[in-house]
């Protein structure tokens, strides 16, 4: 325990920087996954075949072991941040696509019919009525995606990606040497802190971006 605290004291600045890096890559990936995932959801929620296809494909992404996926991307994207972000986006898609589809499909048909009956066109209906009403479900999907990617982002170090994964891999590479255990522990601590923070932030975002009329 003393060794751990001593490590934190000595390496605090560097750890803080890695943690920020880690959080940043997660947020960028989740932002991209949200844009792509919501778009896929909006385009496919009405028709059976495309909808099942979207869910199946994004579902398969999530089952690919992360080491393998990061490795598979290297021949195409090289090393560094790019393959890391691409892999994280792929992992984040399923919860976002699924919740977008579920959310849009659970909007009361009478509400959509009355909007259409008042002369709201397709886009206006989507932007003003359907998306705001499914927003609580969609934002929950985004939150799940973020929490999933925080953990997986640590593996991004295999492709030389940024973040706390580097600390873990470096420590594992010279396991047994002094400080290797405190180094792994501090990286894990950083990941847990990021995960909890993101979770809390999303709960707050969901609360403040959901209309009072549909808040539970």
């Amino acid at each position, binding site marked *: 325990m003393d060794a751990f605290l001593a490590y934190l004291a000595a390496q605090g600045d560097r750890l803080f920087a890695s943690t920020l890096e880690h959080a940043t890559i997660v947020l960028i990936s989740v932002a991209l996954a949200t844009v792509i995932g919501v778009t896929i959801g909006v385009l496919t929620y009405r028709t059976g075949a495309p909808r099942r296809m979207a869910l199946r494909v994004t579902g398969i992404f999530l089952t690919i072991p992360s080491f393998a996926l990061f490795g598979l991307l290297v021949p195409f994207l090289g090393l560094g941040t790019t393959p890391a972000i691409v892999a994280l986006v792929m992992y984040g898609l399923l919860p976002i696509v699924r919740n977008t589809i579920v959310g849009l499909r659970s909007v009361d048909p009478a509400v959509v019919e009355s909007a259409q009956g008042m002369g709201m066109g397709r886009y206006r209906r989507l932007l003003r009525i359907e998306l*705001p009403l499914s927003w609580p479900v969609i934002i929950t999907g985004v939150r799940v995606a973020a929490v999933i990617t925080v953990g997986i982002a640590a593996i991004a170090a295999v492709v030389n990606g940024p973040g706390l994964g580097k600390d873990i891999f470096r420590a594992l590479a010279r396991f047994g040497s002094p400080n290797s255990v405190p180094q792994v522990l501090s990286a894990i601590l950083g990941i847990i802190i990021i995960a909890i923070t993101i979770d809390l932030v999303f709960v707050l975002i969901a609360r403040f971006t959901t209309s009072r009329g549909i808040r539970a």
Partner: protein
Amino acid sequence: MPDMTTMQTTNGAEPMIRLQELTKVFPGQKNPAVESLDMDIPAGEIVILVGPSGCGKTTTMRLINRLIEPTSGHIILEGEDVTKVNPDKLRRRIGYVIQQVGLFPHQTIADNIATVPKMLGWDSKRIRARVDELLALVGLDPSQYRNRYPKQLSGGQRQRAGVARALSADPPVMLMDEPFGAIDPITRDRLQNEFLRLQETIRKTIVFVTHDIDEAIKMGDRIAILREGSRIAQYDTPARILSAPADDFVADFVGHGASLKRLNLSRVRDVELVDWPTAGLESSPAEVLAALRGSDKGAVLILDGGRRPTRWVTGRELGRADQPIAELGHPAEAIVQRHTTLGDALNEMLTSRVGCAIVVDESGAYLGTVDFATVSAEIQTMRQDARDRSRAEADEIHGSSARNG
């Protein structure tokens, strides 16, 4: 009372809506849901589409605002063929109210009502004024309701907000699909009455779908009784539907008790009111007694300062009166208004110990009463009218001799 002489077709004035050979065949179905429907809907009237479930009422209504595109035929609105125009622009000219109301739950009542005016680009000041005007019109206090969300309203209040929303851009036409169908009977009755009163001021052309013949008779200036495929069995005034059903299908649909139903065609304002002796709350027992003696009735109606009925006091109760007038007798019940139908007034009367319904004006002030004798006389008159009319028709048919009656 609707004009009994109005005939099937609207002669003269151009109809607000004309449906021409309107047909809808849903993909994969053999029988059309709406089959070659021809119908004129006159301006400023409530036209009811009524018929058994699945006969095509909703489909017909949704063809008018093109939520369903017709397979063939034409929709003419105010003389213009709108079968092919931009449907969103068309719908902004047609109010639409459905049974589930469909208020936007994430928007306040004011924002809900402002939907169409916003799309039409009204400025915010005009929108705000319009929202408050409409809320007041449908009986929702603007200061109390404009910033509420739909979930903070009762079912009846939501329905009113839905009507306000449909009226927002002052469309000439309103389509209403079983608007009161999901509301409890007591509230439904109130909403129907309110809506009829509202229609007296707004004078919209209204197409109103229901499967309830009683609602049809109460609400309609004209009723189209539809059978399968939205084919018209009879399109006529309520009075003629009741007194001269075109065939067995219509007669069956209207059902028994047609003469009781006809009571819903007459309103309290159509009959002569009966006066009862009245006295103020502050009157002395002697004054009340004098009022009683001056009439042939057995009770005196006590009115408050605003001439609103408060209690009935009988002669016997006056006899042992050392109490103030306000505590004598029993409360005045069975209070109706001038636009109440005689059928409803009769119902009220049955709950009254005095055997009459008290008629009041908008402020609640006493006007007179309706009693059993009045209602009974009205039924006699209607029967006589119906007999005279069918005799006249029979003469006409024999006279023209071209048709076999």
